[in-house]
């Protein structure tokens, strides 16, 4: 896994092309997700399995608008628990999964500072598909829940060269209660490779 990431990073950097005016910004991010609230009641383990793709177009020097798409997998093996409902009790090992598919429209405000480092604030509005699965014994229960979601973000864009760079973003994903799933939230930490042209 680590090796694959390093190889991937090297290929990205060596192949990076050149372009003229900077009008758009594209990033590939490795995503770490820390479950919060209802999500952490279900799975309280931080996920290191995720990625985020972002694309934005600058509409002036400070503002860029675009979209975000990605994926994160939460997982936990829950054992030695008895699930009691009324007079009935059930026990066994549960394998819990929550696959997240965020899809957002985004707007970022990039603060103009020096050349190389630009802090930014962002907001995304869209949806997250939460695909929940519980495996217990030989049985599986799986359901997908689409929830309306928003996510504010603060981050830093670092561009040592004209059209490639790196970014670090911290996002708070918050999606709202749907018919059969309470609102979900998590803290996303994105480390990305950025391409601009």
């Amino acid at each position, binding site marked *: 896994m680590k090796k694959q990431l390093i190889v991937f990073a090297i290929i990205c950097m060596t192949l990076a*092309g050149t372009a003229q005016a900077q009008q758009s910004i594209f990033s*590939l991010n490795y995503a770490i997700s820390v479950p919060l609230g209802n999500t952490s009641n279900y799975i309280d383990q931080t996920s290191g399995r995720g*990625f985020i793709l972002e694309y934005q177009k600058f509409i002036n020097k400070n503002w860029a608008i675009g979209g975000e798409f990605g994926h994160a997998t939460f*997982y936990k093996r829950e054992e030695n628990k008895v699930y009691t409902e009324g*007079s*009935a009790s*059930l026990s066994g090992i549960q394998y819990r999964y929550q696959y997240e598919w965020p899809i957002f429209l985004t707007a970022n405000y990039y603060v103009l500072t020096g050349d190389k480092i630009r802090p930014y604030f962002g907001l995304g509005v869209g949806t997250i598909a939460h695909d929940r699965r519980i*495996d217990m*014994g*030989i049985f599986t229960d799986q359901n997908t829940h689409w929830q309306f979601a928003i996510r504010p973000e603060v981050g830093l864009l670092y561009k040592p060269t004209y059209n490639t760079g790196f970014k670090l973003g911290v996002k708070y994903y918050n999606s709202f209660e749907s018919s059969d799933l309470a609102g979900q939230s998590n803290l996303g930490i994105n480390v990305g490779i950025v391409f601009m042209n």
Partner: protein
Amino acid sequence: MKTIYRLFVLGLFTWTIISCVPNGAEYVDELDIVYTNHDQTYDFQSKGTFALPDKVIKIDFENAPDDPDWEPEFVDPVYANAILETTRTNMRNLGYTEVDKSANPDLIILASALQTDQIFYYYDWWYWQWWYPGWGPGWGWWYPGYYPPQVGRIRTGSVFLQMTDPNNQSPTDKIPVVWSGVINGLFEGSDNSINQRITTTINQAFDQSPYLAK
């Protein structure tokens, strides 16, 4: 060129992420589950004795025939003993005394087991249209007088424990089952390991029913 490069990076990236999907169960005992349920109004504390048959019934999906001489099939004593012994030990540890069924026990515990080792197997005849001579729309196959598409694949086993109260028979002759436990898992492995899992799971059934304690 740039597009190709980006697609390449994207593909590599996706592959990197997908290559670390989390795992599920790896061992048979990780698939064992234990379910218990009971009559919440029943006063277990006031009961003192129980009786237990020396055999475990094997349920085979058929209705029991209406014949006073009929006897069901029984579970292999290798497994039955583990089921009965573990149940007996748990009841004794809870403070109940075992008596013969003729000595008017407060509770009678019945153990049964069910093994399913068949799955229904069927595939559409159209899969063969590319090869079978003369095959065309409207054709199909049938099994004259026998039924092959059942193959042994996943052997799952269930053990049922029913705790009944013989002194509380209702006017309609229904015997109340005041507690029941169901254990389900894969019926795979050596006798030893299966018995070990039977013991663990029956213990768990009693552990998760603290109201049985006297």
